[in-house]
């Protein structure tokens, strides 16, 4: 019951969150909306999985959280990338690039 998503998907979600937060700090709902926008609605985040992912990332030290007042004077928890998080983002982007390049090469090879 704890992991309906495969590891790959979980990793992807975390990467997307890192990317989102690299632009500016944001609360949970905002992150969900932004990911939806950025991926042109391809990734409709199962919102229930977002917060566990945020907890995991907080535990690993990639993000930190803080309660702030929103525009309409409500309280929300904002998440922010840490230095470690930024480093991780860079690493994961490299990984992703390498993996996708490999996939591309295979596809090209098979195709020719």
């Amino acid at each position: 019951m704890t992991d309906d998503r495969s590891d790959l998907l979980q990793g992807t979600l975390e990467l997307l969150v890192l990317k989102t937060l690299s632009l500016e700090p944001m609360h949970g709902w905002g992150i969900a909306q932004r990911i939806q926008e950025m991926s042109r609605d391809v990734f409709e985040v199962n919102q229930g999985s977002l917060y566990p992912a945020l907890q995991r990332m907080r535990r690993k030290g990639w993000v930190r959280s803080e309660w702030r007042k929103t525009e309409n004077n409500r309280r929300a928890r904002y998440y922010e990338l840490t230095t470690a998080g930024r480093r991780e983002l860079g690493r994961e982007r490299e990984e992703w690039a390498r993996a996708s390049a490999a996939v591309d090469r295979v596809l090209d090879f098979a195709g020719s």
Partner: protein
Amino acid sequence: MRLLHEIRERVRTLLFRGREEREMREEIRYHIERETEKNVREGMEPGEARRVALLKFGGVDRYQEKVRDARGVRPLEDLLADLRYAARTLRKAPGFTVVAVGTLAIAIGATTAVFTLVDGVLLRPLDFEDPERLVRILEFDADGGGRGTISAPNFRDWVERTEVFEAASLYDEYRPSLEGDEPERVHGGSVNAPYFDLLGVEPAVGRFFLPEEDEPGSVRAVLSWGLWQERFGGDPGVVGATLHLNGFPYTVVGVAPRGMEDPGLQGASFDEPRLWRSTPAYFATNGRGSRSFTAVARLREGVDLESAEERLQAVHTDLAAEHPDENRGKVVKLVPLKEDVVGDVRPALVALLAGVGLILLMACANVANLLLFRASGRTREISVRTALGARRGRIVRQLLSESLLLAVLGGLGGLALGWLATRGLVVLAGDEIPRMDRVTMDLRVLAFAATTVLGVTLLFGAAPAAHATGVDLAGGLASGGGARGGTEGGGAGRLRRALVAAEVALAVVVVAAGALLARSLLELRAVDPGIEVERLLVMEVDPPFDPYFNDETDTLGLRVEGLYRDILRETRALSGVRSAGMIDILPLSGSFNGLPYRLDEEPAPANRSDAPRTELRAVVPEVFRALGIPVVRGRSIVESDRADAPPVAVVNRTLARRHGGEAAIVGMHIHLHGDEPHRIVGVVGDVTEFSLDRPPEATAYIPVTQAPVWMRDEQKLVVRTAGDPIALAGAVRTAVRDVEPRAPVSDVTTMEGVLGSTLARERFRTLLLVSFALVALLLAAVGVFGMVSYGVGRRRRELGVRMAMGASRSDVSRLVVAEGLRPVVAGAIAGLAGAVMAGRAMSGLLFGVAPTDPVTFTLTPVLLLAVAAVAAWLPARRAGRLPVVEVLGAE
């Protein structure tokens, strides 16, 4: 780095759990609000908008679970939750909880106490440097006989000719009179110079003996810590001081460290020495055939025991050839020192440990049974939870946490009980078991107890947990947790019944053994020692060598005679003193001399070795009156029986019976020592001389003034008091000191105390066994209770049917009790057989009771049946009370 961060986060989460939960809920709330608003903006109705938002979020509860999982402290939180729930469950069933925790506490307590004992006595290494290399040197006859003691010249040859020892020392008991303001007799040891160094201890002050100082005539002493504190107030200036022992001056060179374990004489039960002396001359005066000493040695590094022993024996064989008279047919042995000290008690302690181990296992089985009984009543609850989605692992974990809680509570109670029991054991067994003075509960014991608790949890928790996971879901729900009908058959039931039978059998054996010992003890106490034991103060008086025994012209010992009379006169003058006298060896002291004798009026026996023997005592009047020994014929020994008067003697009834009876023997003449016979002037009552379980010996009493010199130098002052004897002890000591300040007074005690110490061993054994018996009885009762309860629980339906068919309540109860008692009877029969064997094995320890005493062997099984019947009746009664409708119908 990341790991550290993770740990910090987890701890933080754990600590601020409440706040975290609140924040999580608030975060969700915000999210749902925003999503709802968005939906409303997109045109939905508020109610619809909220519902869609919730749907999209995907199940708030499940989300919360997932967040909690992600937080990473789930297992710990679950454990705490389980424990809290378990505590609630246990609180709701106080009877069960008390019985289960009590059973565990008693079993764990007993196990912990015995382990403390075993650890302190057997496992703990000797408190010396590198103790494995320390050995005792012993000598026996080739066939194994002999006491093991050795002689000084042999010792020297062994040490010099083999090269297996790094250092070695002889040891002899030394009991000098220590002079001073308060002269006293002290226990001590005579050793060689290397003694302390070979043990590897450091002096508290000063130093130890040096081999260079071993010249003839040098006399040096080392004090024990205790003696140093008591008599010298812990003053470091004691080094270099002079001590007068038996009149000779000794120089104090140092003080032994606090709490030193002196290996002393062979084996154990030796008074701790208060000082040691090194006098090379002393050992040198003893010949090769005079085997009065023991020896302690340290093996050289790298030399193992077996080869050292071989080497030693080879040398000893040479010595037998060189000195055939003294050494022929002897073998020499090396024993590790620790083995020598504790070897005797090892089998008993190991047996004790096995015994409590058995009790612990049975306690676990009992508690498992009780838990199963409870679990069977919760089958429905478990089925429901499983249907609702609880994972099997979760349920098992929750049941195990109940067991863990029980075990922990039982463990805590057990530690407390164990601590008490250990203290009790130390007090009771102090003289019987070596090394008891340092037995305490330490970390090792705590670790052992913790391991026991965990092991116990698994042992008895596994059963109900396994049972629970094997639960038939549909069956559980449909039948409402009821039984599948019929008596509980199959493997599990047989096992349970066999277990109860085994517990009953064990209880029968232990109870019977305990009863035999208890009766034996009572019989012993009832033995008439032949004296009046109450209100009797005794103490030892030792006149100093100079001036009482060093004057050769004083052949009749008039000086010491005068001393004794003066002491008695002063003592009798004290208020509260009824009568007083002296005797050289007290009754019940366990000492004996056993001299051959003959009567003038009877023919002498053909061989010297066939001569009859008698105990001989030197007395000063009015000791018979003081001790309460009746004079049955003739007269007692009186003041006028002085050194220069005709020699007289008084004999006891046992001796008189040998030679024609009381009337006949008065007037006969008895040769006891020397040439001149003593005229028998009276007969007195018998007295148990050694111990209560042996019949009185033939005894002859002579005035100390007419006794040989070696019987005059030590007398026990016996004072019959009007009130509490100890209250007068100070006054009597002062009276003695006033007469002769240089005479040490020691071993001040009461006759009751002497009697008590002769019974100490029996008392300890009996108490131990009776405690065991009570525990075994309790276990058996709980076992029967559990078994019958479980059976009743399983058979509710069947019993309900019977009652609906017309059986009365008492019928049902009787049925349950009868079936419950079947394994009890089987166990009792097996137990009786075991008890007979145990009785035979114990017959050496019994007094006045036959090993197969019919009364004991009848009452014990009856007692067990009665206890079992009560234990079975309690749940059976409840069975009879079951409302039929509830059992048969819907639950």
